[in-house]
């Protein structure tokens, strides 16, 4: 299949449509990436808290880790996608 990209005359309607597609695709990607981040926070710091609880004989570090992980995740999502 040959490449016709350079030779086709630009059509404003088509460009607008493709621009819309691009924005929609980007937003979809941001949504799913945000989901991966929000899962990663509690999944990372929850087990760390659980392990520290086990070592130190306490019981408050697991919920603290889950919450801190969640907060960190939300901060990162905001930093990456919300602050531009």
């Amino acid at each position: 299949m040959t490449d016709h990209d350079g030779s086709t005359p630009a059509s404003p309607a088509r460009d607008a449509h493709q621009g819309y597609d691009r924005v929609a695709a980007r937003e979809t990607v941001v949504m799913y990436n945000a989901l991966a981040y929000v899962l990663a926070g509690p999944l990372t710091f929850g087990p760390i808290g659980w392990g520290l609880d086990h070592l130190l004989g306490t019981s408050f570090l697991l919920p603290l880790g889950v919450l801190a992980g969640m907060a960190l995740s939300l901060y990162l999502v905001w930093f990456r996608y919300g602050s531009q």
Partner: protein
Amino acid sequence: MSLHVLGAPMAGLVGAAPAADGAGYESPTTQEFYQPLIGDGPFAVTRASIVILLSVALIGWFLVATTRRAAIVPSKGQWVTESVYGVVRNGLARDIIGSHDFLRFVPLLFSLFTLILVNNLFGIIPPVQFPTMSRIGFPIALTLIVYVTYHYIGIRKHGLGGYFKTLVPPGLPKGIVPMIFLLELITFFITRPLTLALRLFGNMFAGHLLLLLFITGGEYMVIHGGFGLKIAGVGSFAMAFVLTIFEALIEFLQAYIFTLLAATYIAGALADEH
């Protein structure tokens, strides 16, 4: 009776034994998805393996048949192939990865998209009617290919240390960089592939189970039920029809999203440091 029908799917999901007397409605269970045709156990040839082989043969035949005598004025088949190729090449690969690097990833993305699309659509096309991706092994295999690809090209481009450095976005306050790095590491290496595989699997699994429930439930009510249940059975078939259309949309969308995210992960691995 209707209570029993409503309660049955939950019992089926947790693997409870169906009604012992054989008279009641047996809801579809997870067993519907494991259908060994030859042999048993981990090396059994299942219905899903036959369906994916069929899809590969079909895609291969279609692509060769529609492009062997490619013409300036395309035939219908050639037009279909070129449209799909155009969407993947321009709409996904070039827009996401960028015009410098995208061309060498088009074969991978095009194969992923067509393979997933055809296998998903097989979920509602008779006589196949089995979505391959509702068996978790298939999405995992596809995800592994994407996973190895984007880490490999990322490490090859930036070097091992450089690749890990690109994970952390620049401009963060110094104090939380180590924690963010850990978070990014888990995201890139665990939750991204996990959600990629589970999203495709879950959508195909749940959709197929829903269709099975409405169709077998409708059949049971129409054949075995009294007058009122027969009418409800017709309603169940109507729901099955509506959900089949809905499934077609989901199946297309999931193939697109899987390819879109694969392209994004590749683009992310190739991205220059800011």
